[in-house]
């Protein structure tokens, strides 16, 4: 095991992810070949279509926004030595926090304050509530881990299912207006994040159709804040200390149980921002299943991005490209449907995540020979 950590940094953060990605594409290509399609044209469509139009780029950024939030969510927990599989559920439940203030508070504030003031205040409350509910839903498995010893991987997975059922119930029985057929809340007009296209229209610039909205900047700011938290605050130091060496952390007077719960709360809160983005920025109402697997993609994003915010942003863009390219590919080729794209993404996650260490020993051998 002496090869671990002995590789040059550029190999560790550059070559290994790219190699894994290449192998994932290779295997995906084989799958495409098996169903009788040309893998080269498929991959070409997958990669080139989204990049050849402004709308495609915007869609990539739109997906990358979600993936950045969930990637950061996984990364913060990871630095504390925890594997948070529950980003999906945390992001879903946080929809309650995103929608409720918009539906209740927005109307009240709107009645007494001018629109230009009530909207930002409502949005801010929505943002805080999204984070808070996500944080609670992350804190809870953290509490179970810290105080009861229940393994976080198991509890977060189970809480994903609970989140799913809970949200179906809440949206159907509580949020759905009487008489409405679709299982969704009424439109949240009092906390409405305009899309780039709508903003462009307001100032007279034509922008292609895409759900991209200013929340993408929130993702960048959040990434910076997470970096700041982890490497420039005492709390971040303690989180990393617990993750790196719990015994040394105890020696240093850090209480691991407290740090585990705190890190999981922050982690869940970050996933909760997906709800803010999706519910208020894209859907403009509370709908079913808006998270669409972003929580799971976040795991791959964090692994590929080495749990560093910059890496996470880059990996989020890559997965944004795969998502958008996958959609384009399913339009271009009838035989390759959405499920096929999920297979490709799954392979990427498999090679980036579970098999991430596969090539490391070999590369280590090559580099020790060369050096």
């Amino acid at each position, binding site marked *: 095991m002496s090869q671990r950590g002995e590789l040059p940094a550029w190999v560790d953060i550059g070559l290994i992810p790219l190699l894994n990605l290449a192998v994932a594409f290779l295997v995906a290509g084989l799958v495409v070949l098996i169903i009788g399609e040309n893998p080269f044209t498929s991959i070409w469509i997958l990669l080139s279509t989204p990049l050849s139009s402004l709308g495609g780029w915007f869609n990539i950024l739109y997906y990358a926004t979600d993936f950045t939030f969930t990637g950061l969510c996984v990364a913060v927990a990871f630095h504390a030595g925890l594997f948070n599989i529950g980003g999906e559920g945390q992001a879903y439940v946080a929809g309650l926090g995103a929608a409720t203030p918009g539906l209740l508070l927005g109307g009240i504030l709107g009645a007494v304050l001018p629109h230009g003031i009530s909207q930002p205040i409502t949005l801010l409350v929505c943002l805080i509530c999204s984070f808070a509910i996500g944080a609670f839903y992350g804190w809870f498995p953290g509490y179970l881990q810290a105080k009861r010893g229940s393994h976080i991987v198991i509890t977060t997975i189970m809480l994903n299912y609970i989140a799913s059922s809970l949200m179906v119930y809440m949206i159907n029985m509580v949020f759905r207006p009487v008489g409405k057929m679709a299982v969704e809340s009424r439109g949240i007009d009092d906390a409405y994040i305009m899309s780039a296209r709508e903003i462009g229209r307001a100032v007279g610039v034509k922008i292609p159709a895409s759900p991209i909205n200013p929340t993408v900047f929130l993702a960048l700011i959040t990434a910076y804040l997470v970096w700041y938290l982890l490497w420039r*605050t005492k709390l971040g130091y303690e989180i990393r200390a617990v993750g790196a060496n719990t015994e040394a952390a105890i020696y240093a007077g850090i209480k691991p149980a407290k740090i585990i719960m705190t890190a999981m709360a922050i982690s869940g809160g970050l996933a909760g921002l997906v709800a803010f983005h999706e519910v208020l920025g894209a859907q403009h109402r509370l709908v079913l299943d808006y998270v669409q697997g972003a929580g799971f993609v976040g795991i791959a994003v964090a692994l590929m991005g080495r749990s560093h915010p910059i890496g996470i942003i880059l990996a989020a863009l890559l997965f944004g490209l795969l998502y958008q390219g996958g959609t384009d590919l399913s339009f271009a080729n009838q035989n390759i449907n959405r499920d096929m794209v999920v297979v490709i993404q799954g392979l990427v996650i498999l090679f980036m995540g579970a098999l991430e260490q596969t090539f490391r020993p070999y590369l280590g051998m090559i580099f020790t020979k060369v050096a």
Partner: protein
Amino acid sequence: MTTPAIELVGIDKRFGSVHANKDVSLSIAPGSIHGIIGENGAGKSTLMSILFGFYQADKGEIRVRGTPVKIKSSTDAISHGIGMVHQHFMLVDTFTVLENVILGAEGGRLIGPALAKARKDLTHLAEEYELDVDPDAIVGELAVGLQQRVEILKALYKGADVLILDEPTGVLTPAEADHLFRILSTLRSQGKTVILITHKLREIMAITDQVSVMRRGEVVANFATKDTNVGELAEAMVGRSVLLRVEKTPSNPGEVVLEVKNLTWRDKKNVPRVDNVSLTVRKGEIVGIAGVSGNGQSELLDVITGIAKATSGQIIFEGEDVTALNDPRILRERGMAHVPEDRHHRGLITSFSAAESAILGWQHNPAVGKSFHLDQKAVIEQTRRQMQEFDVRPADPFLKSAKFSGGNQQKIILAREIGSNPDLLIVGQPTRGVDIGAIEFIHRRLIQLRDQGKAILLVSVELDEIRSLSDRILVMFAGRIMGERAADVDEREVGLLMAGVQEAA
């Protein structure tokens, strides 16, 4: 002369920079109980792991009944009739005794025949060696002593002629240990050979025929048990290495900084690891705690520094009862610094940069940032200063902690703890695995700190270190303080105290 049951010739093994076994030769007579004694880290377990096929020796030869053999795995060892009872049992808790016994000797796809055979054999073994265990009991539900019996049965069932026991009594109550010794004598009388690894002198005296003493990877002495005594063994174990004398003036002790009263700490099995310990440390003196490692020194340090919670007793630090505090952070803030015994697992975080490790425990110090903020510049600046003052090489605050040599890692830790200007410094094994140059440096710094009027509590398994640094020496054995001696005490006398012999002449 009969052929030795086991012969080890020139066994040599390195783990990176650690020379675990240096040219070890050992001969074990058949039908005897042979003790191997030495402190933790003396290389006993490595040697036995080589014999049992867990490690391969870099050099040397193993002979079983006179024939040179290659032992590449435990399967090889078992086929040569060598069985091992590990310190931490290798049992499947949810299996029955019978199922555990046939583990690795199932003899086919269906285990029915093997189970039937094992049941029969077990009855024989039980009669022959006083090894009664219910074959259908679930192992996890058995008492520790019985679990150990299952381990012995396992080895015998597989046809072991030579049985290695690694620290077998560590987990046993005295009554269970006595029973184990009876079993071992029965085994001997039936012609089996037993190798007993331990660091407890009493056991060696009680049961063995021959004893080999290991120190720092070497066999330093061989005795026939009846011709030796506890004092001689203790002396051989602790050794008389080159004296590292430090220049120092007589101490000038001031007021009491730390007072420990009747402190007891029991582990999860309710065994008192620290047993009714009382001590005081005054300003301007170094109090050394000597003892063979594993006699409660580590636990004592943990309790005093707030890492573990005292079961009973009192800790008074600077006139205030801090027993219930149980918080290393608050104790640090009040002026209690702690250089831990194990620098890799506690002293620093190997994956962190040197600068990050250099604030471990002091991350809330206002000097490295106000409120929640951690001031990177201040941290780097402080680390640079400390590295310069303590001559850490390379003086690079950004280098990963793991990349420094042992001595430099230790200097980073000392710089951190001494740099906090503490009233009391608690130091565990300050020079373990540190090169000579760094040892001198560290010793000088500790004396210097004492001369500044600070109180120092020193724990070390190096008797020379204790003797050259301390103003007063306390000796710990089995969790208790055996006695207090002045710094110029006779080495032999301390050796006896370390072996648990209360009243030395």
